[in-house]
């Protein structure tokens, strides 16, 4: 069987799974799976760019996804005028001060000759800078967070169209990736993993605690949408008539129509990124990246600047994750910092890439859809299984209740087993790299 036919078969299988969900459960569920599958596929493409193309081990996907989500708030929410007046200037000044301190420290480090004087100067600058930053910044934060805390209590965004947030999300993530890459690239591969794990936890901590920025755990709800609202559609006589023509009631039809529109938007982004990555993979740049991945020493001997190329590909891959994160937050319609879980946003994406086939873009897309489908459907399937197992047990027994409760944790177990099985028996994944 030729590769093309095999791949087509695999994608047909995924399509069949989603369509099957539509027929057996509901079309609404199927569309939700499809939309999240599209987003997952984009995240998987980003990680595949880092891991598959360049062999970089990024365990901080969650952080970059969250930065993308933050971008949606910063770009699309209307600015809170009162908050800006109260403390906007203080916060901005504080941030500038903080940045200036860091820049000054770097400058000192480079300009002064090594020795005790440099150490003391750095320490003094750091201390003065830190307390100045805290003094200016904290007063600003207090003022902002006091502005109608139940509804706003944050600076808001720029009030720009939400679609603009997607590329901005990519940019924010790229910035974060640059800082991490500068520190950890060029060292052992494990160090990058641990550094990215750390930065992602910190990004989430910032989003949870800096209320002036993202309202923290109070969440930002009601983000603007690029597609019409269901309620508006239901009140539109023309739409209701069309839906009736298809034999659907207006409520169902509006839900489906909105989700389809999201799906089309996401599919366009996916296709653009996929084509770009395919071209990149086949270009001289892609060949160089793979040469570096397969033998760093040889590539370095050929005059390639390995660390620089790694930084480049790391920033690009993270930007794609950020873009996907912005899309996901747009789809959710709200930013919930506490919903970012590393197992769901970092490690699951890794399972997608490995199962799909590292180094293969088509594989990443397939893995994105397939693993997302499994992730969603394992729970109901597990529940069914558990009901079967516990059917013979007496009602009200502690074991039965415990087993039924534990269904929720089947997902992690299944994902771990899938990952290990693929790594062991088919390490090149479902669609291997050519």
């Amino acid at each position: 069987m030729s590769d093309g036919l095999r791949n087509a078969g695999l994608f047909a299988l995924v399509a069949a799974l989603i369509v099957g969900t539509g027929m057996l459960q509901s079309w609404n569920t199927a569309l939700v799976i499809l939309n999240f599958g599209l987003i997952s596929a984009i995240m998987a493409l980003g990680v595949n760019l880092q891991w598959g193309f360049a062999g970089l081990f990024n365990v901080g996907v969650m952080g970059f996804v969250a930065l993308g989500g933050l971008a949606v708030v910063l770009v699309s929410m209307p600015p809170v005028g009162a908050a800006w007046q109260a403390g906007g200037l203080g916060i901005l000044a504080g941030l500038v001060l903080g940045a200036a301190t860091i820049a000054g420290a770097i400058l000192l480090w480079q300009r002064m000759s090594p020795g005790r004087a440099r150490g003391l100067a750095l320490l003094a600058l750091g201390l003065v800078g830190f307390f100045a930053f805290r003094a200016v910044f904290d007063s600003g934060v207090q003022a902002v967070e006091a502005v109608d805390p139940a509804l706003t209590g944050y600076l808001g965004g720029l009030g720009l169209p939400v679609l603009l947030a997607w590329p901005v999300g990519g940019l924010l993530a790229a910035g974060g990736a640059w800082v991490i890459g500068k520190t950890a690239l060029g060292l052992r591969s494990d160090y990058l993993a641990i550094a990215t794990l750390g930065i992602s936890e910190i990004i989430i901590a910032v989003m949870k605690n800096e209320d002036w920025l993202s309202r923290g755990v109070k969440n930002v709800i009601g983000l603007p949408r690029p597609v019409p609202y269901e309620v508006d559609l239901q009140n539109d006589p023309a739409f209701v008539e069309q839906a009736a023509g298809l034999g659907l009631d207006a409520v169902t039809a509006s839900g489906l129509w909105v989700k389809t529109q999201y799906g089309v938007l996401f599919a366009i982004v996916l296709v653009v990124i996929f084509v770009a990555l395919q071209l990149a993979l086949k270009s001289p740049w892609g060949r160089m990246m793979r040469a570096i991945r397969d033998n760093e020493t040889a590539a370095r001997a050929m005059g390639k600047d390995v660390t620089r190329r790694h930084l480049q590909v790391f920033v690009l891959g993270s930007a794609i994750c950020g873009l996907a994160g912005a899309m996901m937050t747009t789809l959710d319609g709200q930013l919930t910092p506490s919903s970012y879980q590393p197992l769901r946003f970092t490690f699951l994406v890794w399972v997608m890439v490995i199962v799909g086939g590292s180094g293969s873009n088509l594989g990443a897309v397939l893995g994105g859809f397939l693993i997302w489908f499994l992730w969603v459907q394992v729970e109901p399937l597990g529940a069914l299984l558990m009901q079967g197992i516990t059917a013979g047990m007496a009602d009200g027994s502690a074991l039965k209740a415990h087993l039924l409760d534990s269904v929720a944790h089947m997902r992690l177990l299944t994902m771990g087993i899938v990952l290990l099985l693929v790594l062991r028996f088919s390490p090149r994944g479902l669609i291997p790299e050519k």
Partner: protein
Amino acid sequence: MELLNALMVLMNFVIVPALTYGSQLALGALGVTLVYGILRFSNFAHGDGMALGTTAVILFTWWFQSLGISLGPVPTALLALPFGIAAAAALMLGTDRVVYRFYRTQKAKPVILVIVSMGVMFIYNGITRFIIGPDDQNFADGARFLFTVREFRDWSGLDEGFGIRSTQALTVVTAVIVVAALFWFLNRTRTGKSMRAFSDNEDLALLSGINPEKVVAVTWLLVAALATIAGTLYGLDKSFKPFTYFQLLLPIFAAAIVGGLGSPLGAIAGGFIIAFSEVTVTYAWKKVLEYALPEALAPEGLMQLMSTEYKFAVSFMILVVVLLFKPTGLFKGKAV
């Protein structure tokens, strides 16, 4: 007098908790560093391995409690610890046999093993949640305090005092015993020496007739014991929650890297460096400074450098500084 009071506050809120936390981190980092030295990969499943070992301890503790067995003032968990270690050892040896050994014989790249350990992490995490659920579990019993703040104050006649919870004392004492035993084992016994030889130079060790499978098996036994003890002590001292153990990965790795990956001594030093930095940076110094400084200089704010939610940021900052300026760690570790 005022300075003494400041010292007491400092003891109560900074030194004692940081010593406790540092011991827990050091035990965790020792496990990570052993796996790194012998098996040559960063074990991402370590945090969840700790959680699973602790789960076993908790189940045994509950069983003993239901049988009415107790150790009086000492937590019953101590009695359950050997059983928990046995369970964790069986689990880790089984994992090695089923999962890791295949890649070892293949001489797979370290990064592949890291990804494999990620899969193992998922499975451990799933099993832990399956058995005990994702919620907080309390399994500490016995005496709450060695001595309380009030008792100390009455005894010393100072305005301030410090107390030591029994779990804190237990943690430090256990850690000292475990570390001493571990170092005795590594430096004095034949098996320990062969482990160090294997870690230094694998080929040379193989040539001199060291059985690699035995070294690996012993390593996993040690790691299981260290992880279970660290996890149990942490759970007794704070509380047991599976997700917290996953989050401990970052400070544990930071401790191991700061000390130098592969260096047991470094892991201990790293554990205490991370713990003391975390506690001092996130502690509100107001009260200490009020005692230590003359009245005119008494601070108005809380004098807290960073809020407690950012404690992970502290270990991360230390990690970044070490990576930038001394990537092999303070005690020269390996840099493969």
